[in-house]
């Protein structure tokens, strides 16, 4: 679901970025007001979870791949505003260091995965939790499923409107060449089935595990990030090479050269859109989570370690700047 560079026109990117700006400002304000300083590093760990879950690629028959995002999980654990901020930063690290998702398309990617997804997932979760208070994990699962599908739908619409709005004199698309009637089914087939299921499994499994091992996390008290959470992180990092088993490229994330040869739904494109050939390009430090000179598996694990550590460090440093309120009541309750 990571929209790469030049698949969206610069004007679309600008609109999406402008739409995200007030959301980010609001999120920063809300997090500052609502999240106690002690809980801020937890946001980093949440962002690391989301980062890692996006490294587990799942293959779909037909050669494309996809992944879970974990945004609804974060929204359930930390609230939607914190989830928005954490996923945005995870996406930023991915775009900047690993070339996953474009720098220009950062606003659009954040809109889909850091705004639409956690908020829709969280609203569904909250509504269902009111109806069935005893089955909140099920509610979170359904919220996650709806969240990822709405996000995929948004991404599909962003892809699909490109050929309607931006074409050259010959009628060829300048950016993403697939119109709505191709992009929506292509994106939704995968997300309604396998990737949606992956998101549900990821969300419910992690929630179930955390409920058993550190229930304090679920009740909203300031928790001690214990061995359970770090253990889960290590397990996920060690498991990331599983994501390499899926060999294909995700739908809508091909290189320009790969795109020209795409034989999608029987209609070969046959040209590379002009906007992609001449567009903005950015060299990430470790493109595609690979490190030159190292086996792919090793590079993948190393990227996972570097990404996770960067996110945790970032939020730890941010927490040290915040002079947020300390909740003395909680320590009194515990003591």
């Amino acid at each position, binding site marked *: 679901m990571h929209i790469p560079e030049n698949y969206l026109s610069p004007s679309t990117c600008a609109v999406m970025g402008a739409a995200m700006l007030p959301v980010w400002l609001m999120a920063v304000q809300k997090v500052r007001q609502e999240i106690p300083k002690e809980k801020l590093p937890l946001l980093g760990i949440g962002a690391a979870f989301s980062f890692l879950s996006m490294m587990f690629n799942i293959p779909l028959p037909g050669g494309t791949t996809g992944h879970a995002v974990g945004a609804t999980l974060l929204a359930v654990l930390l609230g939607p505003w914190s989830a928005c901020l954490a996923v945005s930063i995870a996406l930023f690290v991915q775009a900047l260091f690993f070339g996953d998702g474009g720098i220009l398309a950062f606003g659009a990617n954040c809109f889909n995965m850091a705004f639409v997804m956690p908020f829709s997932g969280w609203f569904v979760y909250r509504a269902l939790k009111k109806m069935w208070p005893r089955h909140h994990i099920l509610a979170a699962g359904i919220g996650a499923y709806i969240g990822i599908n709405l996000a995929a739908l948004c991404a599909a619409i962003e892809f699909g409107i490109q050929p309607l709005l931006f074409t050259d004199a010959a009628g060829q698309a300048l950016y993403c060449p697939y119109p709505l009637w191709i992009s929506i089914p292509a994106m939704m087939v995968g997300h309604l089935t396998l990737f949606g299921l992956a998101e549900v499994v990821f969300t419910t499994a992690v929630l179930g595990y955390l409920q058993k091992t550190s229930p304090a996390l679920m009740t909203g008290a300031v928790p001690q990030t214990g061995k359970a959470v770090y253990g889960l992180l290590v397990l996920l990092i060690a498991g990331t090479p599983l994501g390499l088993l899926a060999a294909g490229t995700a739908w809508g994330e091909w290189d320009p050269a790969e795109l020209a040869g795409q034989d999608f739904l029987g209609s070969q494109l046959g040209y590379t859109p002009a906007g992609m050939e001449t567009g903005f390009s950015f060299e990430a430090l470790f493109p595609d989570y690979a490190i030159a*000179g190292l086996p792919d598996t090793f590079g993948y694990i190393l990227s996972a370690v570097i990404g996770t550590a960067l996110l945790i*460090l970032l939020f730890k440093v941010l927490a040290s700047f915040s002079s947020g309120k300390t909740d003395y009541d909680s320590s009194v309750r515990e003591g």
Partner: protein
Amino acid sequence: MKIPAWAMREESYEPDRDRDYFISRSLLRVMKVLFSFRHQARKTQWNHVSAVGALCFLIGWLILTVSAHGAAFLFCQLAFELLLLCLLDGRILRQLLGNALAAAAFSAFLVAPAIWLGNGGNVLLIPCKTFLTVAALGMLTEFLPWNQLTAAMRVFHLPQVVIFIFDTTLRYIVLLGEIAGEMLTALKLRSIGHNPHKGRALSGVLGVMFLRSREMSEEMYQAMVCRGYTGEYPATASWSLRRAEFCLLVIFLLFVLLYLRLEVMR
């Protein structure tokens, strides 16, 4: 009781504004250094790693960093250092990362002409190496108190005098810092109104400190002689391989293997 008239009179003394920031600033600076020394000496979290093991690891680690030619190996080192950094507290991290990034930025500034002259991206490895080395050193001093580090120097057969001077310097920075702090506080409390002789005030503080330090050093030397000091620093307790050191050794060997794979056999 009858209060005399002069005591009843309202005080209307308003001192001139005086620019005595130098007192506050030097006081703050002294306090900061003292705080960091105290904080440094109190660390107990890494008790199970001996300073000798950690120092040996650091030296080997730095040699690998400095001699690497490719980005791949440095990224592996970066991953390990970032993992260790995650164990530190946010405030310490801020300082440590700030120092390391500043050093990296400075070295990037120094090598910038080489990039313009067309020496390729390999020049950029130097700022990366600077970051890695400064962060590694910063972490060592964060994880281990300085008194253990000076004690560990004995194992590396450094001359006795060097260790003695180093150890005494560190100790005396704290002792004299306390005196300086007290005197600056006293000066601050007594400086009301305009002080026309700032030079005299400051040189007074420094002069008294010098005299005190001379007295203290004589006293210390005599105390040491009384306790049997003959100019020899006894070697630290015999050093054996503990579990933590074994882990460090395994990690180091892994990195040596990686180094051979990525740097030597490429």
